[in-house]
């Protein structure tokens, strides 16, 4: 070593030499450093910290139940079901009130436009287009969000989510993925873009990519209202009102479980094809449970999440509403541009159990899933059924008169859970992976799964004669 000629890149040579020494010492230096740091810390603790012995270990007791072989899984499922049930049954009344107020205000606005003698097209674009889809987004989205987000933040604050990872890790291990992926999926319930960002907690790049590519299979808050509305109309319509919320919660829990199952299947397949590799390690901290700070939870979930997501939805809804009104009211020949496009999409859409308008609404909803349903309603309304929509019963009449069956409802819900991510999520994936190829796959994989699953469901139902 002493006769090594030292070149001009002295520093890098030295660094390499140091690295070699360190590795040759079989972790000796690194271990020594860690040892000394801990010895130092222990010393400080011994001199300054007085521990009270009396505290009962509540966390251990809670974990005995929450991560037990017998009760661990049922409690997870039950928690999910109860949160959805509270969200659905709690959102009904405020949704109806908001819709009532906002649509009454629409009449006032229309009155003003008439008084001023504004042209019909202006009234159409601004009121029937922008304002009405805004009213729909707010009245349908706001109440479930304002209930769901605080409840979920509460769970997060309690420290329950790492236990979910602890319980589910062995399944992720079988898929050669990381148990922490379940944490990123929990974030995805709120917003998939946030879910994709949270994948940074996964250390192995391969497993992080798997989590990013599959995050979209967890339905985000923008998609819940679609599931709730359809579940309410087609799944629980015949039941007594006090059973409805529970039935809808059951249906949506089922949909979420399908999404989770697809997550596992796709993760498993990716680990064996595009992202080949063995599972790496997982180190997961289980922090003690703590009493949630209710006010902080309310503030954080309301300001940080609800307002943020709602603002984005509103910003997209205004232009999208105007554009949808335009394309559904500008006629080329006998039909509007919207109807032409829907007709064009019809054959493909019918094969997967949807119709052209539904598929078109999902495509136009790319900027934000929140506007899919308002767009769909507007396109149905403009195709001849001019009724006032202020209740779910009206919505049911509208959908059924447009040819919806239970199969349409089921396929629309499946498509909603599985289809391509919204534009924000795709852009986030691009930012996080730094690769156009992986971002494109983040679009392609869900799209493929949605078409595949809906196609199989629709075709088998028709083959068995269960649906037209």
């Amino acid at each position, binding site marked *: 070593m002493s006769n090594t000629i030292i070149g001009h890149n002295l520093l890098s040579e030295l660094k390499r030499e140091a690295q070699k020494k360190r590795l040759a010492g*079989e972790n000796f230096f*690194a271990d020594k450093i*860690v040892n000394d740091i801990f010895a130092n810390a222990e010393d400080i603790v011994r001199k300054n910290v007085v521990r009270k012995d009396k505290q009962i270990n509540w966390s251990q007791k809670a974990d*005995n139940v929450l991560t037990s072989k017998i009760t661990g*899984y049922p409690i997870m499922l039950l928690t999910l079901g109860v949160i959805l049930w509270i969200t659905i049954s709690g959102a009904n009344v405020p949704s109806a009130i908001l819709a009532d107020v906002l649509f009454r205000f629409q009449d006032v606005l229309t009155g003003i436009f008439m008084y001023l003698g504004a042209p019909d097209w202006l009234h159409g674009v601004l009121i029937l287009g922008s304002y009405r889809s805004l009213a729909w987004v707010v009245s349908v989205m706001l109440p479930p969000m304002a209930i769901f987000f605080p409840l979920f933040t509460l769970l997060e604050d309690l420290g329950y989510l790492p236990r979910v990872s602890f319980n589910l*890790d062995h399944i992720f291990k079988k898929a050669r993925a990381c148990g922490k992926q379940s944490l990123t999926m929990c974030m995805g319930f709120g917003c998939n873009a946030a879910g994709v960002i949270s994948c940074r907690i996964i250390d192995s790049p391969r497993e992080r990519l798997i989590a990013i590519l599959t995050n979209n299979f967890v339905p985000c808050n923008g998609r819940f209202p679609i599931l709730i509305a359809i579940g309410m109309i087609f799944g629980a319509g015949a039941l007594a009102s006090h059973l409805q919320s529970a039935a809808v919660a059951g249906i949506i829990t089922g949909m979420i479980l399908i999404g989770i199952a697809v997550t596992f299947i796709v993760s498993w397949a990716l680990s064996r094809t595009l992202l080949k590799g063995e599972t790496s390690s997982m180190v997961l901290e289980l922090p003690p449970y703590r009493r949630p700070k209710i006010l902080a939870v309310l503030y954080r979930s309301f300001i940080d999440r609800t307002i943020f997501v709602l603002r984005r939805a509103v910003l997209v809804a205004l232009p999208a509403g105007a554009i949808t009104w335009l394309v559904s009211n500008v006629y080329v020949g006998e039909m509007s541009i919207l109807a032409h496009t829907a007709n064009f999409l019809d054959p493909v859409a019918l094969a997967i159990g949807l119709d052209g308008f539904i598929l078109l609404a999902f495509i136009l909803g790319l900027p934000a899933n929140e506007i899919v349903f308002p767009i769909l309603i507007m396109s149905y309304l403009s195709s001849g059924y001019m009724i006032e929509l202020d209740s779910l019963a009206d919505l049911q009449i509208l959908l059924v008169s447009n040819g919806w069956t239970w199969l349409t409802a089921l396929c629309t819900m499946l498509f909603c859970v599985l289809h391509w991510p919204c534009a924000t999520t795709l852009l986030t994936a691009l930012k996080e992976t730094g690769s156009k190829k992986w971002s494109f796959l983040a679009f392609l994989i869900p799209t493929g799964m949605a078409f595949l699953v809906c196609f199989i469901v629709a075709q088998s139902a028709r083959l068995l004669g269960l649906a037209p």
Partner: protein
Amino acid sequence: MQGAKPKNKSQITLSQMKEGSACTIADLHLEGLLRRRIMDLGFIPGTAVQCVRKGPTGDPIAYTVRGTTIALRKEDAAKINVFMA
């Protein structure tokens, strides 16, 4: 380096510990980033460690070390030797 086999009778691996039992860490047969991370969390030779609970299928396993609960996968825990108390 590769042999994670315990050297004598009183030594077992972290993954062989029974739920509720306590041991002292002997040595770690882990390499690279994982070794660093696990040591940074306080798994260093001479430290008392307690096996708190196993996951629903026996994997991962949660250990308490220096007042913190950390879950490790079985394969990783099998590379850490401990002295039985």
